[in-house]
């Protein structure tokens, strides 16, 4: 494997925070993070890109597809400092726990993002565009303000 493309949910704060964290780590296998509902994702992976992704999807340059907990483990495997952890999490004794945890997080990700005040990429992009509109004096009184 020479590279790994990760499709994440850009509308979820938790996922976007994870995306920023992944991009900040030193990588053994280069990671490319794409919003699952982006044009680029749709163009390159028409069968995988979704507007409302249910889980994290990772695709290798060879076309291997990993989903959900497996995708997370492969992401860790791609990172220099967390490769050991990927092997630990993939052990038969731990994999079901990881699966439960990832599922638990995935189903509650929007609620968790709100509770932890994690802003999604989509929200940040929206805030930026409306702020830009404000600067050119074309926004309403309450628009563009970040909470």
């Amino acid at each position, binding site marked *: 494997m020479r590279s790994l493309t990760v499709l994440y949910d850009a509308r979820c704060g938790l996922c976007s925070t994870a995306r920023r964290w992944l991009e900040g780590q030193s990588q053994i296998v280069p990671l490319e993070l794409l919003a699952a509902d982006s044009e680029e994702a749709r163009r390159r*992976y028409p069968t*995988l890109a979704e507007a409302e992704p249910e889980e994290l999807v990772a695709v290798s340059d060879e076309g291997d*597809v990993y*989903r959900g907990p497996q995708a997370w483990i492969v992401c860790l495997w791609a990172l220099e400092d967390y490769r050991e952890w990927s*092997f630990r999490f*993939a052990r038969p004794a731990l994999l079901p726990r990881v699966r439960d945890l990832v599922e638990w997080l995935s189903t509650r990700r929007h609620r968790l993002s709100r509770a932890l005040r994690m802003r999604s990429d989509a929200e940040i992009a929206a805030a930026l565009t409306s702020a830009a509109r404000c600067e050119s004096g074309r926004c309403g009184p309450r628009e563009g303000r970040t909470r």
Partner: protein
Amino acid sequence: MEPNIYPVWTYLVYVSLSVTLTMWVARTLHKNGRIFLVDAFHGNEALADSVNHLLVVGFYLINIGYVTLALKTAQKPFDIETAIELLSTKIGLVLLVLGGMHFMNMIVFSRLRRRAMREVAPPPVPPQARIPVRA
């Protein structure tokens, strides 16, 4: 009355025997650990030799340090019997310390090797699907 010569002889035998044992274990480690290290460093022999040498230096320092610290005894031997008993206890302790150090070294070797294997290992989970990739 003649001076008691047993303590001095016991000490001399103790030191020479302990140092010989340490050297024997260190050489064994040096000789047989090399292959592990060469593998762990992906065939980089110069680096493996360097790490091997440094490990052996640490091994010598700790063991000879222990041997010299443990030399002094409160109960002085006064005949050949008590001298052998004392020597036996002292050498037994040195052997246990050597054994412990040896296992520590083995752990270091195997950790390094395992880490090296993982650097080139494929992902720990199999893919769930395969899609054709566009060039």
